[in-house]
């Protein structure tokens, strides 16, 4: 007894809060039993609210009368994409082949990677591109590359200036952050159809859809980079008489260069992950191959195309990372000579690719591609036969044991009860800074008219996020403690992030059937990589001296992890959980395609049925609101608990959303 009171006295504040939260939950369950089934704001699949119909009307009234402004934008973007396609992917300028054949593209890309990066990256670039060609997907890959380059180029034209502005002004920064949240959390399905209304069917709409999704990381990272330049340097420049413009170009920009490049890199990754979705409005390239294969449930072919996307992503990622890490300095004479020779080789390669057929069209029968397809197919079949019977049991166990109780608590309680409980909870863990945004978000959620669907989605999201955080911490700690594990796991994590979810939907459907669980599994695959990467970074940032001190004091490995590394990396872990959550939410719509229903289904129904357009839009908003709600509560909670010093490394990752 004495021991218990003793420990209570020592750690007074925290157990008390947990105790209060427990009481809150208990009250909720009791009230749920009393009021169950009333005021649940249920809305049937085909039913709409006045708000939904009003949104649909607005869409109908915008109609096809486009104004000159949008037409001008469309024409310019269409021309740009067509030009890039003419250069590398489509027959052009009256010739049966693109202006640059495969040999020219490989030579040029490797040369650029070498000139701005390292020779290793140049080698990787060449190998990656040749591999994609051997897969029999050269033209599709180049179409994808052309669209990605156009979208990224245009994104940067806007993102970098806006990022700089947001870096220099606090007010702009606050407004911009809000807009970026909306751009990233809003499901792409929601704006895909309206975009074709405004920008017509064609490359322009696809490019703009990609751009909207891909620009935010570049803005965030640029702003962050400008903000992190030490005030001392700026002061020094000012006192030496620099004007504002000079300070910007001579001090701020050069000093933030490497972070800006990370932003560019993340923008490229985000653009590539849009490839499959943009194919729904006729974006050219690999996305089409994936979608076509999906119509006939051809896992192998879809995997082959998905792999090409992953390879492109890895090449672009490593090349931009190397370019960012490179210290800019004048080249030595010897390097200049080599760059000159290399340039000549590139010119020769380009000349060949314009003259001879073998250098223009990739000489392949797609043998490797079909072998990969067959291998992927038989692996997935083997796996399904091995584990197929067992997985349904897991699904039913988790669904009946955890998901259904949580879901019925959320959907069966009156909306005002959920409202009161969540706001109280937010206030307990985050104070007023948690409670006020929670109340606003929940109020707006009620307004969207899809409250009940939002609660179903919330239940799945909470479960998925819990799993993501658990697995992410496990993998992250393992990676953070061992370089070797890290280098083995990282390519797999990269693949998890860039392999289009559409590719593994079919095997997952076979494993778990059409169910909410399938959607949760897909979300976990997508969200675990980013979570474990951030945790690993945080663990690695724990000062070596601290770990050594603990080890020499006789702590076991387990003790070092739980008593030293995890507590010190707490901020990184909070951030990892937060990012995991946002990644899970961005998979809600994909979940709707495999039987998760709720908001994901509403959004895709809005995309394909004209009378449900407004409801789809409202469901999209509801997903954003859920994201903001959970984000603000966790942030407020983290702010309260985080007493330790900020770590710049973990902190930086906050901006790396993609």
């Amino acid at each position, binding site marked *: 007894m004495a021991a218990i009171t003793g420990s209570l006295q020592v750690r007074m504040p925290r157990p008390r809060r947990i105790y209060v939260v427990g009481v809150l939950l208990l009250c909720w369950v009791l009230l749920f039993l009393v009021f169950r089934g009333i005021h649940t704001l249920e809305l*049937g699949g085909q039913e709409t609210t006045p708000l939904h119909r009003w949104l649909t009307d607005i869409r109908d009234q915008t109609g096809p009368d486009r104004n000159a402004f949008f037409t001008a934008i469309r024409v310019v973007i269409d021309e740009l994409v067509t030009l890039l396609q003419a250069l590398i992917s489509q027959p052009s300028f009256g010739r049966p082949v693109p202006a640059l054949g495969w040999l020219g593209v490989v030579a040029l890309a490797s040369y650029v990677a070498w000139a701005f990066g390292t020779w290793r990256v140049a080698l990787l670039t060449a190998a990656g591109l040749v591999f994609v060609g051997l897969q029999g997907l050269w033209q599709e890959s180049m179409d994808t590359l052309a669209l990605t380059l156009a979208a990224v180029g245009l994104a940067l034209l806007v993102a970098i200036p806006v990022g700089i502005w947001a870096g220099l002004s606090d007010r702009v920064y606050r407004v911009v952050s809000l807009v970026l949240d909306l751009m990233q959390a809003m499901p792409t399905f929601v704006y895909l159809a309206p975009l074709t209304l405004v920008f017509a069917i064609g490359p322009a709409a696809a490019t703009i859809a990609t751009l909207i999704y891909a620009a935010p990381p570049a803005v965030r990272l640029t702003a962050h980079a400008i903000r992190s330049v030490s005030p001392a340097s700026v002061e020094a420049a000012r006192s030496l008489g620099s004007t504002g413009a000079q300070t910007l170009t001579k001090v701020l920009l050069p000093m933030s260069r490497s972070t800006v490049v990370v932003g560019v890199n993340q923008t490229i990754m985000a653009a590539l992950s849009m490839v499959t979705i943009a194919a729904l409005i006729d974006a050219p390239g690999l996305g089409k191959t994936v979608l076509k294969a999906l119509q006939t449930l051809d896992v192998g072919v879809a995997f082959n195309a998905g792999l090409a996307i992953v390879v492109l992503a890895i090449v672009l990622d490593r090349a931009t990372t190397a370019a960012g890490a490179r210290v800019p300095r004048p080249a030595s004479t010897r390097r200049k000579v080599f760059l000159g020779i290399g340039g000549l080789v590139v010119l020769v390669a380009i000349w060949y690719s314009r003259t001879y057929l073998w250098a223009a069209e990739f000489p392949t029968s797609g043998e490797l591609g079909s072998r990969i397809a067959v291998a992927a197919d038989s692996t997935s079949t083997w796996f399904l036969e091995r584990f197929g019977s067992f997985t349904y049991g897991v699904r039913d166990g988790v*669904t009946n044991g955890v998901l259904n109780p949580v879901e019925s608590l959320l959907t069966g309680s009156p909306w005002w009860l959920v409202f009161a409980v969540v706001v109280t909870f937010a206030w307990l863990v985050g104070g007023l800074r948690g409670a006020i945004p929670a109340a606003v978000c929940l109020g707006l959620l009620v307004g969207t008219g899809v409250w009940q669907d939002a609660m179903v989605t919330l239940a799945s999201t909470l479960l998925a996020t819990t799993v993501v955080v658990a697995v992410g911490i496990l993998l992250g700690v393992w990676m953070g403690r061992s370089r070797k594990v890290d280098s083995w796991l990282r390519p797999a994590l990269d693949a998890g992030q860039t392999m289009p979810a559409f590719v593994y939907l*079919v095997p997952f*459907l076979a494993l778990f059937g059409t169910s909410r669980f399938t959607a949760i599994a897909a979300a976990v695959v997508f969200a675990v990589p980013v979570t474990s990467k951030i945790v690993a970074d945080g663990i690695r940032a724990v000062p070596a001296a601290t770990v050594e001190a603990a080890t020499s004091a006789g702590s076991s490995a387990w003790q070092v992890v739980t008593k030293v590394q995890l507590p010190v990396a707490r901020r990184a872990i909070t951030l990892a959980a937060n990012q995991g959550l946002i990644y899970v939410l961005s998979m809600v719509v994909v979940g709707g395609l495999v039987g998760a229903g709720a908001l994901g289904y509403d959004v*895709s129904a809005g995309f394909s049925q004209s009378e449900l357009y407004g409801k789809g839009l409202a469901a999209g908003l509801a997903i954003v609101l859920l994201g903001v709600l959970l984000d603000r509560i966790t942030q407020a909670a983290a702010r309260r608990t985080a007493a330790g010093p900020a770590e710049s490394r973990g902190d930086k990752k906050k901006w790396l959303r993609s």
Partner: protein
Amino acid sequence: MVAKLRAAGLFTVLTLAVAGCGGAKIEDPGAAAPAGKDCGTVNLAVSPWVGYEANAAVFAYVAEKDLGCKVVKKDLKEEIAWQGFATGEIDAVLENWGHEDLKKKYITDQKVAVEAGPTGNTGIIGWYLPPWLAAEKPELKNWKNLNRYAATFKTSESGGKGQLLDGDPSFVTNDEALVKNLKLDFKVVYAGSETALIQAFRQAEKQKKPLIGYFYEPQWLFNELKLVKVDLPPYTAGCDATPAKVACDYPDYKLDKIVSKKFADAGSPAYNLVKAFTWTNDDQNQVAKYIAEDKLTADAAAKKWVDANRPKVDAWLGK
């Protein structure tokens, strides 16, 4: 490292030089367009299911080879394809399933599109069972017996009732109303995509699991899996007039073609081909099979069918 690089560079140049000597040169295509009446460009919407792709493949093949048209295929969902009529980016939709709402909006109200006659295909929508289940429990083919077996169709998603699996949100469906009005102890669960629906039927057949779900014909899956249709109360004209009160089977859909008004008025040979294009469900399934199962490209699949069915094609062309 420097030496290595130099060697590599030299090696590349040498390889290129040697390999280049024997290569075939790229030739300018010159004037390769077939002679005849100028056909121009046809912008063809291609919706995401294989049956439609089969229609589009054969139409495009004939239009290009026999009429010398340029066919631009655009992969789009139906709703967006119809938007294209208004803006001039789509000339033809080759397989339309009902969609009275879209017809009203674009044909009657906006007057930007016109009907171009049936494709000859009959679309059948309904509730289907995997073959093993229909063989084992033939009584399930009558909707009246469904309630007795509701418990066997229970899943983790159906909340204690039997599960009726529906598909993609773009599918025409009255299933929620049907379940309610026929007083069935079932819950409609949305798979959310055609892919998920097909996979569910495949699994159900392979693992002998009970399943009942929405499906339609013509569909390439029937080449592989002969799903069995459940008889709902028969369709009579007007029984589906009020969506909330529907208690009868789906009507047979006469699939048809829609073209933009501009395209129809221009009266190019391609428009005449769109109008004349008709074939049967078997024809379509055949081409869909070439694409979906034999993995031919759309063009190769079309060629194979056209070569075997020249008389039909000639009839379309008025030969």
